[in-house]
């Protein structure tokens, strides 16, 4: 079900010549390939990508645990890393939701914080809404599923854009899985604080994805995928998730290219 939410209506700029990439802490130390793939993909669109070496984490883990001051200290350190007035492309809906929708309140004493938040774009949102990208699919025909994170879906309102990108790939069939809009059960510290509930949720989500009869699923959020892939691997299933940046890069590369 699609919900039209006025909070998601926003102004999209013209295609920029430069952007920042926000890699997120999870990608930094666990899944850096996705970060490199996102940068490579953007560069192929003729965009110069800045990756500030001072970036760390958006502050969400502390914020969601109720430790607002600690979250604020970390959030402030992030804002300082992105001085140029160019878009900040973020390869996670969840961290994007934090920076776009929670920073205004968390950093309400920072002058012009809204202007910073207005520069935050989730990766798939940026490709569709700002670049108006047209993809050329060079891959084999296959079926994939899409997992959109809850933050992308409900906070950022960008669950549509992931699907739009996959549908542009002419050899890829996008398969809907059961309870597609339901949470995978990650929720950051929730998966630890209420591990048994989280376990029940991720077991259902991984089963539903597995039943969809796809060779892979894609997502723009490594938080969800670390959770779901971990469950699939534990269950000794072959299905795995792949970050949409890596998937799009692979599908659009000319055949024979590495």
């Amino acid at each position, binding site marked *: 079900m699609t919900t039209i939410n006025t909070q998601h209506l926003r102004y999209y700029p013209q295609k920029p010549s430069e952007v920042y990439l926000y890699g997120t802490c999870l990608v930094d130390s*666990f899944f850096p390939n996705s970060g490199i793939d996102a940068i490579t993909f953007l560069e192929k669109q003729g965009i110069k990508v800045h990756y500030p070496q001072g970036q*760390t984490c958006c502050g969400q883990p*502390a914020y*969601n645990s109720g430790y607002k001051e600690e979250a604020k200290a970390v959030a402030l350190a992030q804002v300082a890393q992105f001085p140029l007035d160019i878009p900040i492309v973020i390869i996670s809906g969840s961290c994007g939701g934090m920076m776009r929708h929670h920073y205004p309140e968390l950093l309400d004493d920072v002058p012009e914080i809204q202007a910073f938040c207005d520069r935050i774009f989730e990766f798939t949102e940026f490709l569709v809404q700002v670049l108006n990208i047209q993809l050329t699919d060079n891959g084999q025909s296959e079926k994939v599923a899409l997992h959109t994170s809850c933050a992308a879906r409900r906070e950022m309102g960008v669950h549509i854009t992931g699907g739009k990108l996959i549908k542009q790939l002419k050899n890829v069939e996008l398969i809907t899985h059961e309870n597609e809009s339901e949470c995978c059960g990650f929720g950051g510290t929730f998966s630890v604080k209420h591990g048994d509930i989280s376990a029940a*949720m991720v077991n259902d989500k991984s089963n539903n994805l597995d039943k969809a009869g796809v060779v892979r699923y894609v997502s723009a959020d490594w938080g969800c995928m670390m959770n779901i892939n971990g469950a699939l691997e534990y269950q000794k299933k072959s299905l795995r998730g792949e970050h949409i940046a890596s998937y799009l890069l692979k599908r659009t590369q000319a055949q024979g290219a590495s």
Partner: protein
Amino acid sequence: MSAHQVTPNESKYAASARNFRNNVARDLNNAELRENFHGAMHYLRDKRSAAFPQQDELETLREQCKLIKQRCLAKLPYLLEQLEENLTSNGIKVHWAESTSQANDIIATLIEEKSGSQVVKGKSMVSEETALNDFLEQRNIECLESDMGEYIVQLAKEHPSHIIMPAIHQNKKQVADLFKQNISDFSYTTDVDELINVGRNILRDKFCQADVGVTGVNFAVAETGTLCLVENEGNGQMCTTVPPLHIAITGIEKVVEMLDDVPPLLSLLTRSATGQIMSTYFNMISHPRQIGEKDGAQEVHLVLLDNGRSQAFADEELRQTLQCIRCGACMNHCPVYTRIGGHAYGTVYPGPIGQIVSPHMLGLEPTKDLPTASSLCGACGEVCPVKIPIPKLLLRLRQESVKKQDGNSQVMKGEGVGRSNIEAMVWKAWAGVHRHSSIYNFSMWWLTRLRKLMPSKLGVWTSVRTAPKPAAKTLHERVKKHQSSGAK
């Protein structure tokens, strides 16, 4: 099911909420219960979805109803006085109860003044809040639930597991077995219509015998002094028109300013709750039976309960909790509720709304596990008909729960109870690392170099998942190399 049996004392919900983690473990492992909730919640989601074919209309109506409730809450003290004034001039007596025990005392006294001994009750979650049935039983007053779901729950000596569908945790076979155990001349059937008829025949006699009808209220209209009651079984109408004494009980947040506020709220309530365009019955009670009228109670009373609501009211953000019109859509769409069911919460109100309202009723101490029992997926906030930002309020309650006590003004009873020195230190250290990129980069460099030492068991995480492995090099390092080699 004996775990849900009630013991008549004021803090029974506090005790069961405190037991949340054990309740969850118990109910997650009950396959039949999981299946009952899974089936019912998906049914209700589909019904709601079908009742809102036009997204634009839904969003317009949600915005309108949010504004109605916010306007009424902004004027709450004034509207409550106006409500009392107009009800009184209509001949309906108003009583104020700050606590659940005060509410019970008021109701018992009213019944005893009329020498009443038999009560029929329409569905009322506020009377569950006060544990009225237990209280009246102690005073030797029989109180029979007349809503079919509530009747089943009462027969099973349980609590409602859902605010709209009290017996949704039971399937038809379980209900048939329950009837077999408790109803002497019951001829066994699992046919839903036949089961309902069995209950109805028993209730029909009780309506005629009862001295008192007790019901809840969905909307109390200040402008006209009218009590509105939404129901589907006609039992609410029976409770309010047949017995000579009608006592309504509700929370103070149910007041609306004017009659014009009711239609949009009603339209959203029934569609959000059960997917009905309109409930089967909608009762409006404006006065006791008047001369020449053939039915209606001769005496009508309204008990207005606070029970922690004014604590929520006092804080502008937390006040949004009181916008709730009790449709239950948040539970129907909640992935946590769908899996653990309504009883696990241990509170009167389960699910997302229960997680944000119960801490005001019981304090944060017994309910401290509730605000964290959410992945903050946002499904509740997305469907809430009055746009309560439930995930945001859960976050706020988490903040209140771990707040450092400085002796200054208190926002909530029990604030700070969730704070542990160890957790506070961990987050302080975490912030120390993540606010200084040099320390962060140094830490991540070591994390990736020591990846082989990463344990394969990570507590509860690896009970159903494998442990994630750090990469060989961080993105920070990889980007440096990528940039120095020149982009392809």
